[in-house]
């Protein structure tokens, strides 16, 4: 049986996760519960290579919970599904909308009664660039 000694470094202020106290031979049962710190990236980003960020300008989507200045987590890898918030590229600009198809026509739907839906004209430069997976707001 041997005991390894560790010298503390009082000069450093780095907080480390608690490890069970040094016991002579028996491992502390608490060591089994030692976990890494929580990292929001793990939660908010499913596809790191396909994830990009964007900032919102304007309030046309406020009823969908998106307001001016919010930070968007955008995933290009996930498929569009009805009612998803889509980052669309239309005529030289990124725009945040929901999509609706009616007959032959595609509409970009705002979520604010003060704004009107937009019909995508045939031949416009339109693409769904990515899908919003999280909205991050500063509230304080």
């Amino acid at each position, binding site marked *: 049986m041997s005991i390894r000694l560790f010298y503390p470094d009082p000069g450093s202020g780095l907080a480390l996760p608690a490890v069970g106290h040094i016991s002579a031979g028996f491992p502390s049962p608490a060591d089994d519960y030692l976990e890494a710190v929580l990292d929001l990236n793990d939660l908010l980003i499913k596809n790191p*290579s396909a994830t990009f*960020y964007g900032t919102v300008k304007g309030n046309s989507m406020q009823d969908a919970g998106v307001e*001016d200045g919010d930070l968007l987590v955008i995933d*290009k*890898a996930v498929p569009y599904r009805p009612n998803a918030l889509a980052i669309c590229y239309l*005529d030289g*600009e990124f*725009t945040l909308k929901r999509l609706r198809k009616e007959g032959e026509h595609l509409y970009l739907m705002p979520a604010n009664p003060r704004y009107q839906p937009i019909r995508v004209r045939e031949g416009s430069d339109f*693409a769904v660039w990515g899908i919003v997976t999280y909205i991050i707001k500063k509230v304080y």
Partner: protein
Amino acid sequence: MFALVDCNNFYVSCERVFRPDLNGRPVVVLSNNDGCIISRSEEAKQLGIKMGEPAFKIAAFLDRHQVAVFSSNYVLYGDLSHRVMRTLGQFTPELEVYSIDEAFLNLAGLSVDWVEYAWSIRQTVRRHIGIPVSIGVAPTKVLAKVANYLAKKDPAQAGVCVLDQPGKITAALKEFDVGEVWGIGRQYTKLLHASGVYTAWDFLQLDDAWVRKNMTVVGLRIKKELAGIACLEMELLPPPKKAICTSRSFGEDQTELAPITEAVATYAARCAEKLRRQRSCAGMMMVFLHTNRFKQHEPQYARNLVCKLPVPTNSTIELIRYATAALRMIYRKGYRYKKAGVIVMAIEPEERIQGALFDRMDRAKHAAVMRSLDAINAKYGRDTIKVASQGLGGKWRLRQERLSPCYTTRWSDIIKVAAHAGACAHNEMIKIKKPQ
């Protein structure tokens, strides 16, 4: 089987990821200091714009044809390259990153339909990152290069070419210019042409002894690979660099010591960062400085100084100290300087460093400071914290007049998503009935 995945017109494609409006339009990217054309979209190639052409010479032409021109944004290209490589890594356990925009995938052990597999790789990279790629699949790396070339050049292949049957390989090699074969340089091409060898197929008919005698064992390996015998090992990780160089031309010629010192300190800091990233230290450093050789009427001066570092290091603080001291020794007043640079050499792994007997530096502390510096700069952007001698940047900086935002690496540069009335103003605003 091997796949070679190559990003099409990579730098231009990177710019287009965040500017979809540039699809279908001629786009070019310029080299450092906005010098020459280093990446062209297909439309730009069709306009007859040549690789390496100095931008200033064709400025009027670019304007007339409404070519979108960008300064090179290596921060953006580096990040997107990393994303592409990580995505490719999902398709094979063995990925060899061959350059910023090319990688070999070892597909050994997979039993799939190659064409379908290549298509799914292509679609995935396209969708997840927005970068178009061409893919060549074949039994050896040299043949995969051939297939990749065909995938790119032959519109009928639509970006994917699989050479898996002997018949297909033979047919392709009979049409393939020997000079385009990977590893056969211009010199050997001349020699081969002189010997009546024009296609890759002709080359394959040569006698082994002749190839070995005239083109060394490397030529023989290329021949074997063309014959379908894999003999180039996968290099899984690029070997650690033997020397790291950071040098730039100044945005405008510099005469004073102060701005050049800032530049050299910054280059030294870059070298230190690169060293730390590959967990190694440098034992030697060279600093160089020179005037513009092409301005023959101006007095010319060029000098470099190599210094041996007392203990191999990767500390920004230490490298800057030696680099700026070396610069002071080689700097002479009265010249117009064009370029300076820092090269670190004698690179060895961090853990193999031996201390010097009279070393008075607290290396553990230095290492800790550097770790914090890297962590902060990784989080808040390059040069958030830097050593004072790097200065606040100024005159010596690169000319990058048409730099695109760093969409993926700087919070202030992320895309802006419109949610206002002005958005989509060109499109019809139509009232539609609310569904009941």
